[in-house]
């Protein structure tokens, strides 16, 4: 009989270690099984690729060239004439593609800036409470007491018309929803045992907020990001239509704005191009948003 005691390893026991799955792994697995979600992700990726190719001037460049007579009807002869021409004889297909680039750029920038602002302000308010909370809540309650569209109009009006004003207007209003959610979540989480444990081990506020609590509430961030992305695209169209939006470069908003005078002349293609382009990406975001919500809901097994 040997007395040597070698530590028992996993191999000796021949029992595979139970693999716990994180919320993210579970969520990803669920999403992959969800056919709708896969298709929608593909659609959104397709829009991103179109936008990137347009940005690199590979396709639809230059968009402002006169390629046909004014209001030439759509024809199948060449790609750029698939959607006919606008009043200046420019290709509506190219304008739609350039509009995709405008929309994706806007959605990305607005979501990428407003979501972190919302997360940080909401986290600080919910975590610290007290007068900091009062101040932040006062700030966003004030902003959200001004009817959203009116605030957007006022900001765009004050900053002058154009793309930059639209960016700033959308960013300064769209962080509020995220801040509200984060504040509520941080208030719920800050007294939980794992945070107390971290606290008793001497974790700093910074580490508790960002290392301990944030990963547990991060699924809200993904959801909110996709929502902000979509609402930025929708808001651009309405702002431009109301006359405070993008001018000069093609966007779905100013294509639809042009179309209000064109329909009576029987020119339907510019409106159709912008509407269809917008429809599919909004549809994809709507469906993907639902799938994400279900996939990342810890209550659903």
């Amino acid at each position, binding site marked *: 009989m040997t007395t040597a005691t070698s530590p028992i390893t996993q191999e000796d026991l021949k029992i595979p270690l139970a693999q716990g799955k994180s919320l993210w792994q579970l969520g990803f697995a669920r999403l992959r099984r969800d056919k709708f979600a896969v298709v929608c992700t593909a659609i959104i990726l397709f829009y991103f690729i179109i936008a990137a190719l347009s940005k690199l001037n590979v396709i639809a460049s230059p968009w402002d060239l006169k390629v046909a007579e004014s209001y030439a009807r759509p024809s199948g002869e060449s790609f750029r004439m698939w959607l006919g021409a606008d009043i200046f004889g420019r290709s509506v297909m190219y304008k739609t593609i350039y509009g995709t680039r405008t929309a994706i750029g806007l959605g990305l920038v607005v979501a990428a800036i407003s979501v972190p602002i919302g997360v940080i302000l909401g986290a600080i308010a919910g975590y610290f409470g007290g007068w900091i909370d009062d101040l932040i809540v*006062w700030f966003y309650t004030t902003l959200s007491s001004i009817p959203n569209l009116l605030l957007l109009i006022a*900001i765009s009006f004050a900053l002058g018309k154009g793309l930059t004003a639209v960016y700033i207007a959308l960013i300064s209003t769209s962080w509020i929803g995220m801040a509200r959610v984060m504040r509520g979540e941080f208030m719920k989480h800050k007294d939980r045992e794992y945070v107390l444990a971290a606290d008793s081990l001497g974790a700093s506020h910074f580490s508790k907020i960002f290392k301990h609590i944030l990963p547990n509430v991060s699924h809200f961030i993904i959801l909110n990001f996709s929502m902000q992305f979509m609402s930025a695209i929708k808001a651009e169209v309405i702002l431009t239509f109301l006359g405070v939006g993008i001018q000069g470069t093609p966007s779905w908003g100013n294509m639809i704005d042009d179309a209000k005078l064109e329909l009576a002349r029987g020119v339907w293609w510019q409106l159709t191009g912008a509407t269809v382009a917008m429809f599919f990406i909004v549809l994809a975001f709507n469906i993907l948003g639902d799938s994400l919500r279900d996939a990342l809901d810890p209550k659903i097994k």
Partner: protein
Amino acid sequence: MLTFLIRRIIAAVPIIFGVALVVFLLFNVVGGDPAIMMVGKHATAQQMADIRHEYGLDKPLPIQFLNYLKEITTFEFGRSYATRQKISDMIVSGIGPSLSLTLPAFFITTLISVILGLFVAYFRGKLIDRIGVILCVIGMSIPSLAYILFGQYYLAYEMRWFPISGYDYSFPGRFDYLALPIVLWLLLSIGYDVRFYRTAILEETSQDYVRTARAKGMSEPRIFLKHVLKNSMVPIVTNVVLEIPLLILGSFLFETFFGIPGLGSITIDALHNSDFPVIKTMAFIMSLLLIFGNILTDIVYSLVDPRVKLK
């Protein structure tokens, strides 16, 4: 109830002050010189000086802000720059057309959406429900402007079922003009609303009392109409009440597009004319309406749901 009301009104004071501050900063500081916005860059020095003097823009900013606070506490908003009308008169004249559009549109839409929501929720998981949900998501994803533009073109211009645009102040006469916007409002919101009410109703069907009702052998239609419908009224009414303050504000898109002279149109016209005093006042008044509307919402909410206690 009374103490609640008083407390809420006191709590609203810093918010109203905040709104006034934001509006003032946006228009008088961030936006640059309001006088240039109003008269344009090519005005003579004398014109500029006159405008500055008339709107008190020649005084230092803190004084301007105090003057602004005085304006809003006395409801003396001065006159429009473009039309010289008193702004308070413009607002009063705009509320009627706005409400004539939004009230019927909202209530018709809500009634139809709740009925359809109940219908698809009753067939949950079945083909009718699936088709219903797909149609809702498609309806939600079509841009709102597409509804308005295509709707006006086909229903008014091509089919001539409705007047193209305009407004009539006479009482039943105004609905000739409002019919098309109301129909389009219905189409535009029904997808979102039906889906929302369906979810609210389905939430109720998984409650314990439904299981109890089933266990004692109650028929499914009876459970639905007697128990589920009654209980799902709480989220439904909450949603309805939350929307009501927004109805006073009218609709920017519908009013400008169909030429209805409501608050939305007044604001957008002012925007196109760079009518700075009007937009500034609109931003403030509409926020005020929204803040008090929300207080009202809380009160109505407590009346609907006996579990909610006003503190």
